[in-house]
């Protein structure tokens, strides 16, 4: 039964990593839109991220799971279906992005204006400036915040067990019900989550040490 649980833990990790990848892309888009000078870009983005941050996570997960097909049907007149896994990924990456966009915005603002001006004065092209001068510094400022949000994302994956994704939490529930040992199995699941968290924290710290090695 422990093997079942460990397999399910891989599912949890996979879910979290896929959501992280999508979430980071979304976060860049959200923060770009929020910092845009175009009001029609800025306001929807601000409204969306504020709303996402204010809603209970479980509501977002249910809304996407039960509501996505409904909404797509209303919009397109077509029945399109998403598996629980992809609904989970969508919900988790949106939630991640809503918070990560804030972090990125803060980090971009934290890069001193002088850096950009200096690059301009040296005649460097704008894209080169962004990718080689601004972005590496943004990354350094954003990493602690993003690391935190990754840990939150990891814990939020437990919610998708409620829409039937066979993750660690779901498996723990199944084994608890059949073995009548809920304490043992939820406890074991908790320890596995804890182990993943601790390993992640070490990883983030090493990454942090790498990006700040010139400080």
């Amino acid at each position: 039964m422990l093997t079942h649980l460990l397999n399910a833990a891989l599912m949890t990790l996979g879910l979290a990593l896929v959501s992280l990848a999508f979430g980071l892309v979304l976060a860049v888009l959200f923060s770009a839109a929020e910092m845009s000078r175009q009001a029609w870009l800025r306001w929807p983005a601000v409204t969306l991220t504020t709303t996402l941050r204010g809603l209970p996570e479980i509501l977002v997960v249910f809304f996407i799971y039960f509501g996505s097909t409904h909404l797509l049907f209303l919009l397109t007149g077509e029945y399109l279906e998403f598996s629980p896994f992809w609904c989970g990924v969508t919900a988790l990456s949106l939630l991640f992005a809503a918070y990560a966009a804030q972090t990125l915005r803060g980090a971009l603002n934290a890069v001193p204006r002088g850096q950009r001006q200096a690059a301009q004065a040296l005649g460097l092209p704008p894209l080169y400036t962004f990718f080689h001068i601004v972005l590496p510094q943004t990354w350094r400022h954003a990493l602690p915040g993003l690391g935190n949000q990754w840990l939150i994302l990891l814990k939020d994956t437990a919610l998708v067990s409620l829409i039937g994704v066979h993750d660690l939490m779901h498996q723990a529930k199944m084994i608890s019900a059949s073995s009548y040992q809920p304490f043992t199995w939820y406890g074991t699941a908790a320890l596995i989550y804890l182990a993943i968290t601790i390993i992640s924290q070490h990883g983030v710290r090493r990454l942090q040490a790498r990006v700040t090695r010139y400080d």
Partner: protein
Amino acid sequence: MNKTLLSLALLAASVTAAQAEEVKFVTNAAYPPFEYVDDNNEMQGFDIDLAKALCAQAELECSFHNQAFDSLIPSLKFRRYHAAIAAMDVTPERAEQVDFSDIYYENSAVFVAPAGKYDSLDALLKQTVGVQNGTSHQKYIQDKLEAKGLQSRPYQSVQDALLDMTNGRLDGVFADTAVVGEWLAKQPGYTVVGEAITDEGYFGTGFGIAVTKGNQALLDQLNEALAELKADGRYDSLYQKYFPH
């Protein structure tokens, strides 16, 4: 990102189209003896066996999927699956959302409680009972008994509710007679309280297989196969296997 989502959606849609030959059954496998997951993580039970027999008879390729009970009808509505066989009462509300096959099992509902504690339904009225979320049982209590003081708590499955009753969290459980019967046979110390309830407005006339509204072709195939199974005795032997008492 929107493009990615869209292409994912299209991918998902095209995958469904390619597998259109397969009939995807969905159930909530936490409802023995109708449907449950055995030690090998395989779905078993009367409904599953019946559906397999129906598929064999109608020469359909079938697969089975597990979901929460309260998301069965939405997932049919949005064509996530083709059919649901889940000990589901045929009720007027549900019949607005999905189409039902002929009745394949006649049903009633009962209260169970610790033996010797409540001698009639009236004695149970000021207490708390467990029901499965989204079932006719929940609606029945909400409409008919809540005003008389009966509290209900919603559970993901009847098994969860029964477990919480044995833990002393609930005074009783309100569920399908057949499910409770199976459980009572293994649990001394618990008993049925009052008469079985057969209110057609809530529990309909029995269980039916639900299909996406308008899928008449599948409905006809299932009904025809069901009639065959009933005629040649295969239904009866299945029934005997699961409900010997």
